[in-house]
């Protein structure tokens, strides 16, 4: 228990450092979402991350990933010609190859429409290094030279009630690709 608190403390410190360190300038994306009321943006160059109660409790992450960038754990590349199930396989392999995640359990892998494009939806559970069970709902699609993904990740015990799910669904439905936006 002490270890978990220590780890949480370190992670929170890192988060605050990150928040202040990356405070320079606006970040531009080729997508847009509506941020629900009461949610705030965790500043990051790589992703758009928003949370209501803190990113270590729950967050929604949107990523615009060039197809030329290989995935970290498997080295695999997406291609613009991939079908949704093929793109999903690459993401599933990447998730299962992540050495930081244990007790991984894939619950759903289905086709989905993401920002009006054919894509996929994954739902999986995992245990983080601090021993907390997280649930992630992951939507992905390929558009042009980029792979877009939108994730809702939170402690599996909390944050999957009706309110959180309604808020996430609102964000998902508001996602627009090829719609430049910037966040302060």
């Amino acid at each position, binding site marked *: 228990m002490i270890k978990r608190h220590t780890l949480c403390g370190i992670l929170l410190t890192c988060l605050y450092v990150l928040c202040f360190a990356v405070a320079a300038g606006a970040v531009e994306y080729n997508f847009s979402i509506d941020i629900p009321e009461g949610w705030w943006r965790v500043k990051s160059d790589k992703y758009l991350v928003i949370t209501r109660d803190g990113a270590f409790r729950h967050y929604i992450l949107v990523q615009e990933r060039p197809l030329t960038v290989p995935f970290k754990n498997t080295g695999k590349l997406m291609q613009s010609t991939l079908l949704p199930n093929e793109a*999903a396989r690459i993401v599933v392999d990447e998730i299962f190859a992540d050495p930081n995640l244990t007790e991984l359990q894939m619950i759903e892998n*289905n086709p989905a429409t993401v920002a009006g494009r054919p894509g996929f939806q994954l739902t999986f559970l995992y245990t983080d290094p601090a021993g907390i069970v997280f649930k992630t709902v992951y939507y992905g699609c390929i558009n042009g030279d980029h792979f877009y993904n939108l994730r809702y990740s939170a402690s599996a015990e909390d944050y999957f009630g009706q309110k959180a799910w309604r808020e996430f669904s609102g964000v998902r439905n508001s996602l627009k690709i090829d719609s430049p936006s910037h966040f302060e």
Partner: protein
Amino acid sequence: MLFRCPDTPSPGSKTLILCVTIAVLVLTAGCTATPVKLESDSMLSRADERMLWHRAGKAVAAEVARGHYDADSPPAVYINRVAARLRPESCPAQLEFRVYISHDPFQNAYAYPNGVIVITTGMLAYLEDEAQLAAILAHEMAHGIGRDALRAYRQCAGPGSGEWQAIHGAPPGDLSAGGGSAAETTDCLQRLVRRREMAADARCLDMLVASQYDPTAAVGVLSRRIDDSARGGSAGRPDAGSVGLLNERVRALDRRLTEIYPGVAGGKSERAVYRLQIQPVLLSNAELNLRYGRYGQAREDLNRYLQVRPGDARAHHLLGESYRRQGGRNRVAKALTSYREAIRLDGGYAAAHKALGLLHYKEGRKGLAEYHLTTALSLSPNDPESAYMTAYLADCRK
């Protein structure tokens, strides 16, 4: 081939408990100045050795429970038979060797202190014959017989360290001044590893000769690893530091072969037996390589498998997968050929129908896509991707 942790990370598998111990000790403990002598202690007579065995047993049990280690499949049974033939008569009775296959596409083998030896599917796919397998096993068994994990433990957890004192109590007199810097400890450990690798190689040669295997197989495996490294070969190859040690070991093995076994050459290699016994491993390693995006290595495994079993539909399907997943126009054509061959060999092979259906769908040949996807769904209605196939079929029928 070492008694330390794998040199390439393998997602999903936990490293040897010894690695953790050594890593912690390297950071925290001092290093004794002289090589550790164990000859006066009989095996398991001291608490620290019993503790290492206990920890190793727990670590192995955890890996077995997770399904990462296998000692019961036919290839594992065969490998354990080879290990049993290598066991020297002088081996302490307490040391029972048991070999596990680890589902890991990277080339590696390692020994736990308690006689458990682990060899990866990647290493088994890499080896060419039974003599080379025997060389790897004999080397790891030599680490067990030489109690090298205990030596490393005592070298690191010297009398000045907390770990040592926790087991043995406070050291008397000037022994308590055994502390040193982390750099000194690392240096000591590297020298110990070098010495013990050489000693294990020497014992390995004796075991190969006594079991009538070709002793040059030991040199062959190491030389091939060095050549692969120079060519920038497959992932899982040794790093530059390890190559230096490998070269040194090859020279020492060559010397020993010339000086001690000048007339011994051409023992048994059992290439055909090995290839036959290891077939299932090649197929599962190909699947692991595919999962890791190592398409070239997957094809190497599959081509070796197909040399022995050319009529295996699953292998042709996987070969098609390796081409399709890697992408590119020429490879797509090769994938089509492989999938068609799989279906020719087994018309009821759902995975090949599905793969062919997806390829046709992608290429806009909706009629062919509809036929193969419908067939795949009728053969395997519970396919995990059935929802995708249903969606593609609906699009084909528009």
